[in-house]
C-alpha cells in the first residue's frame, strides 16, 4: 500500500493536476474569504465553508478520475496486480494519496482562519467543526469517485459520472419533498449529503453524520476492491 501511495502522490505533483486542483481550491477559498469575511467584516466562516461545499463537488471527480481508469487503459495495472500487493492495498494506496491532496486543497480555509485570528477573535470550534465536515465529505466523495474510476477505462467518463453522482447525492434531499410515503422521505433525507453536512457548518461535530460519511467511504472502497478482484475472474 505504501508503495502505491507514494507513487500516486508523486504522480499528482509530477503532472500539473495536483497543483491545478490545489490552486483552484485556494482561489475559491480566498475569493469567498474576501467577499464574505473581509468585505462582510465577519469572522464567521460558516458561509465560506457552505460555498466550498459546491467547489468540492467539482474538484473531487477531477482529483480521482485517473486513479483507476488510467491504469486500466495504459495496462500499467499489470505491474500492480502481479506484484506482491493485495487488491485492498492497491485501492487504499490510491485512496489515501487523493485524500492527502484533497486535505492540502481544503487547508486554505484553515490558513485564512489562522490569518484572521491575528487581528480578530475566531470561533475555533465552529471553524474546526466546519473543517471536519468538509474533510469527511471529501472522504466519502473520493471513495465514490474512485469506485467510478475503477469501472471505466476513460478518465472523462469517470469524471462526468463523478459530477453526476456527487450532485445527485447532494440534491437527493429535494426528492424527499416530492415523494409520497414517510419511508421514502426518511430514506432520501437520510442519504442526503447536504443534510449530513449541515450540522458541521453550525460547528456541531455530529457523530452520526461523521459515521455516515466514513461508512460511505468504506463501502465504496470495498466496491472498488471487488471491482478489481472481479477482473481477475472475468
Amino acid at each position, binding site marked *: 500500500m505504501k508503495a502505491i501511495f507514494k507513487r500516486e502522490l*508523486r504522480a499528482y505533483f*509530477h503532472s500539473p493536476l495536483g497543483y491545478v486542483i490545489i490552486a483552484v481550491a485556494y482561489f475559491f477559498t480566498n475569493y469567498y474569504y474576501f467577499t464574505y469575511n473581509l468585505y462582510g467584516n465577519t469572522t464567521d466562516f460558516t458561509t465560506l465553508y457552505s460555498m466550498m461545499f459546491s467547489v468540492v463537488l467539482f474538484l473531487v471527480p477531477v482529483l480521482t478520475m485517473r486513479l483507476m481508469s488510467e491504469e486500466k487503459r495504459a495496462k500499467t495495472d499489470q505491474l500492480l496486480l502481479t*506484484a*506482491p*500487493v493485495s487488491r485492498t492495498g492497491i485501492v487504499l494506496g490510491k485512496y489515501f494519496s487523493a485524500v492527502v491532496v484533497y486535505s492540502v486543497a481544503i487547508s486554505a480555509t484553515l490558513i485564512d482562519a489562522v490569518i484572521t485570528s491575528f487581528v480578530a477573535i475566531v470561533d475555533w470550534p465552529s471553524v474546526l467543526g466546519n473543517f471536519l465536515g468538509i474533510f469527511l465529505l471529501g472522504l466519502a466523495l473520493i471513495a465514490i469517485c474512485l469506485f467510478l474510476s475503477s469501472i471505466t477505462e476513460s478518465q472523462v467518463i469517470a469524471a462526468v459520472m463523478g459530477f453526476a453522482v456527487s450532485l445527485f447525492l447532494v440534491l437527493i434531499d429535494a426528492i424527499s419533498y416530492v415523494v409520497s410515503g414517510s419511508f421514502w422521505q426518511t430514506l432520501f433525507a437520510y442519504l442526503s449529503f447536504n443534510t449530513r453536512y449541515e450540522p458541521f457548518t453550525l460547528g456541531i461535530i455530529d457523530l452520526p453524520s461523521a459515521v455516515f460519511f466514513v461508512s460511505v467511504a468504506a463501502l465504496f472502497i470495498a466496491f472498488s476492491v471487488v471491482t478489481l478482484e472481479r477482473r*481477475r475472474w472475468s
Partner: protein
Amino acid sequence: MIQAVNLIKRYGEKEALKGISFSIGPGEVVGLLGLNGAGKSTTMNILTGYISSTSGSVSVDGHDIVREPSACKRVIGYMPEQFSFYPDMRVSEYLDFVCDLKGFSPDPEARKKHLGEICARVGISKMTGRMIRNLSKGYRQRVGFAQALVGNPKVLILDEPTVGLDPSQIIEIRQLIKDSGKDSTVIVSSHILSEIQAICSRVIVIHEGRIIADGAPDRLMQDIQTNHRLAIRVQGGRKEIEAALSGLPKVRSIKALPQRELGTQDFLVEGKIGSDIRADVFFALAKANLPLLHTYGGELSLEDVFLHLTSGRETAREVVK
C-alpha cells in the same frame, strides 16, 4: 518450482485453455511456443496471478497462487508482452517504485547496489535519469526486463520479450534471458521457433488451448525436420529444369525464385508433407545434365511444426518424449 494442474480458462463461451498441465523444475529454461491466440499469454497471466483460471491449480515455489498470492508473486518476476510504463517516471524512479512494490529492502545503499547491478546487466546504466517515455522501444524493453529482475526472483516469466525489436536487440535480449537462466527458472513465450531453440532447454507447444508437445527443442526439430521443401540453384535454362523436376512423383510444386546468379535459376521445390525429396531432385537434375550448384532452405517454419504436430499428434508426442 512451478506446478500447473489441469488449467481451464473460459472467457464467456470461448475456452482459451482446455486442461493444461505441466511441471517445471528449478533452473529450467522453458519456452511456451504457440501461434497467436494459442493460449500462451493466458497461461502466463494465470501463472503470475494476474487472472485466475476457471478451474485447475497453480503452485509456485510450493505456494498456491489463489490461496497465497503474495507468497507466489514474491518469487516471480514478470515481463508482460506489452511493457506499459508510467509516462511521468524516470527509469530510476520506476525501478525504485518496483523495489517498493516487491518489498525490497528500503536501505538506500542496498537498493542502489541492487539496481546498479540490474541496470548494468541489462545495459541501461546510462539511461537511469531518462524519462521512460523518451526511450526507444529496445531500451523500454530492457527497462521491462530490469523490473522483472528486481528482487532476484526465483522464477522469471517473460511474455514475447523480443517482439518489435531489431535483430541486434533481439540477440542482446536473448543473451540476457540465457544469463538469467543460470540463477532463475525461466519461462519465455514466443511464436518464433528459432528463438525458443536458441534460448530454451525445453519447449512446451500449445495449440488451441492444449499442450501438443513437450520436450527438448532440438529433438522436436530433429523429429519433424522438413525435407519436403528445398530451395535450389541450378545451372541451365528455366524450362529444362522445370521439365526435369516436374516428372518426379513426390514433387508437388515448383516455384521459380528471383535469379541471384548469372546463368543459373533458383527454384523452390515442394514435395508432399513428410516426404524427403532431396535425393530425387539430385538424381533428376544429374540425369538431365543440369548441375545442381547450391541447395538452401528447408528450415522449419512454425506452420510446419503445427502441421506436423496436429496431423499426427499422438505420434509426435511419443517421439518427442
